């Protein structure tokens, strides 16, 4: 008589395991698709949130790189008890240039005149556009760019020519400089020679038009007392410069001088968007959890419905472990498929949104891998209980007709 030792154990090829795990999914496609969709939505939400926030942060960082974080804005303070309201001293710009680490300085001065499309437009309809007198260095100091035409230069400082900020150009209805457009400033015509792109570090200037300092003085009697001075400094010494600016600009009343760093606002924007990212990631995680519960639910139902298959497999020689591994694999396939589909969907959403916003596409590789791993873990957790339940079913109970 043979002994137990000579009995060759039941064995299944891993490939067969995968094949039989798909039988249940293939025979109930709609249900499998829907429960995988639950996981896919959660994963897609998380990947898209990560991708979009990464792309937007990359965009902010690249615009900070481009615009520089070393710009300081110097203004006369406003409000109760702050200064005489007469702006900065006329010497301020020259004094500020003398600070060693200051690389460039430019100023804008408000001109007491209105700008209109023609002389027929009533003077009260200014469209909120200001006229500013400035020096040719402003565009370089701000690292602003022209949308069309050219900027002011020294040789033409006394001529009636004007450059429009982006919003000002839009409100005046001027889209390019090709037609030799004229605008009515004060009581004479100025020809438009250029239009600026939006100035990210000084959005106020988008609603302004710029004329040379000399023509401003000749035509409108504008004094050289600057409204705002923009400074470019050595990036490593910006804090030191910031400390000495008030006393240098207005030695008599340093408290009335306001100094700000416009790039701080962009950085704050980046920080604010990352706070939203955490919130949305949390929502994505909740969606993923709900998806996991869906998979667990489908697997529990599958075990109930497929009792006879479990019984048959035990009769054909499957061990308890074979049965549990089969159902666990099925759960992993469900959630893994959902995870991969969700990651692809999330990446596609990221790419689509980035293209729409004109950003560089940044698909978060770590996020994608993490999301797929998370979906597989969720499948494992969701499949564990149904798989154990399937394995613990006695073959005679499983085969008994219900």
């Amino acid at each position, binding site marked *: 008589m043979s002994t*137990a030792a000579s009995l060759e*154990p039941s064995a299944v090829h891993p490939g067969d395991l995968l094949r039989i795990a798909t039988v249940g999914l*293939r025979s109930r496609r709609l249900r499998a698709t829907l429960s995988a969709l639950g996981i896919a939505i959660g994963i897609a939400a998380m990947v898209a949130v990560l991708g979009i926030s990464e792309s937007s942060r990359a965009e902010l960082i690249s615009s900070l790189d481009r615009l520089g974080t070393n710009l300081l804005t110097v203004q006369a303070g406003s409000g109760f008890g702050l200064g005489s309201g007469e702006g900065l001293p006329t010497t301020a710009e020259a004094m500020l240039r003398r600070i060693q680490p200051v690389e460039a300085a430019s100023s804008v001065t408000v001109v007491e005149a209105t700008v209109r499309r023609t002389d027929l437009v009533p003077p009260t309809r200014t469209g909120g556009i200001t006229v500013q007198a400035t020096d040719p260095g402003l565009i370089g100091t701000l690292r602003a760019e022209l949308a069309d035409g050219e900027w002011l230069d020294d040789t033409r400082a006394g001529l009636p020519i004007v450059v429009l900020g982006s919003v000002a150009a839009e409100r005046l209805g001027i889209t390019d400089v090709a037609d030799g457009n004229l605008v009515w400033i004060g009581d004479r015509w100025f020809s438009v020679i250029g239009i600026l792109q939006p100035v990210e570090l000084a959005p106020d200037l988008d609603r302004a038009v710029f004329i040379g300092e000399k023509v401003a003085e000749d035509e409108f009697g504008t004094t050289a007392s600057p409204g705002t001075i923009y400074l470019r400094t050595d990036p490593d010494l910006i804090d030191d410069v910031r400390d000495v600016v008030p006393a240098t600009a207005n030695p008599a009343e340093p408290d009335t001088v306001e100094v700000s760093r416009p790039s701080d606002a962009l950085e704050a924007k980046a920080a604010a968007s990352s706070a939203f990212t955490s919130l949305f990631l949390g929502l994505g995680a909740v969606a993923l959890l709900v998806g996991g519960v869906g998979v667990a639910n489908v697997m529990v139902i599958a075990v109930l419905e497929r009792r006879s298959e479990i*019984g*048959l497999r035990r009769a*054909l020689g499957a061990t308890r472990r074979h049965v549990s591994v089969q159902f666990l694999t099925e759960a992993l396939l469900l959630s893994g498929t959902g995870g991969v589909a969700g990651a692809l969907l999330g990446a596609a959403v990221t790419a689509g949104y980035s293209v729409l916003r004109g950003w560089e596409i940044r698909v978060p590789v770590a996020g994608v891998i993490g999301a797929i791993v998370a979906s597989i873990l969720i499948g494992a957790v969701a499949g564990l209980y149904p798989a154990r339940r399937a394995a613990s079913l006695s073959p005679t109970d499983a*085969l008994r*007709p219900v």
Partner: protein
Amino acid sequence: MLLRDVYKEYPGDPPTPVLHEVSLAVQPGELAAVVGPSGSGKSTLLNIIGTLDRPTSGSVHIAGYDTAELSDDDLSALRAREIGFVFQQFFLLSGMTAVDNVADGLLYSGLSLAERRIRASKALEEVGLGHRLNHDPSKLSGGERQRVAIARALVGKPSVVLADEPTGNLDSHSSESILALLHSLNETGSTILVITHDREIAAALPRRISILDGRIESDSSAELVR
């Protein structure tokens, strides 16, 4: 196949006895019927012979193995290699072709898929379904389905095939052809034990073991073991 003094009760208060001192020997190459009315204990007997359940006391030897000495996993291995099952409800998996359903009879034997399919095709030819290899079971008639199930039970060349009411879901014409198939398979060497409540079917088989209230009432063969 040898059963000696098999006693089986189901737990409860008081426990329900279902089999009493059943002793039975089936020799290789036999075609036998276990016949009895419902509730007589024949299904429990099938489960014990098929190692799907263990007796409360007594010994069961299948293909030379004492099942009491085998672990749960060993019993699975024993079923994979030595026992074939045919069920009244067929238990074929839809979404898989006939040949893959039969090949599943060898799924837990460790053979490769290609080898299993070759053997499955042969088994289907043996039961007269060589022309239905790639059909989905749902597209087959009842008789054909049961032939697929029989092929699945035979494909591993088990020591014994246990057929539980194999004609229970079939019309009389299909039943006859299934019985004829079992006869011809027996003639080519298979050991087959048919469990049925139908005395007419039992009467057509060479040996009849009649069971009532958990005891063997009569055995047409003189080989009753005591």
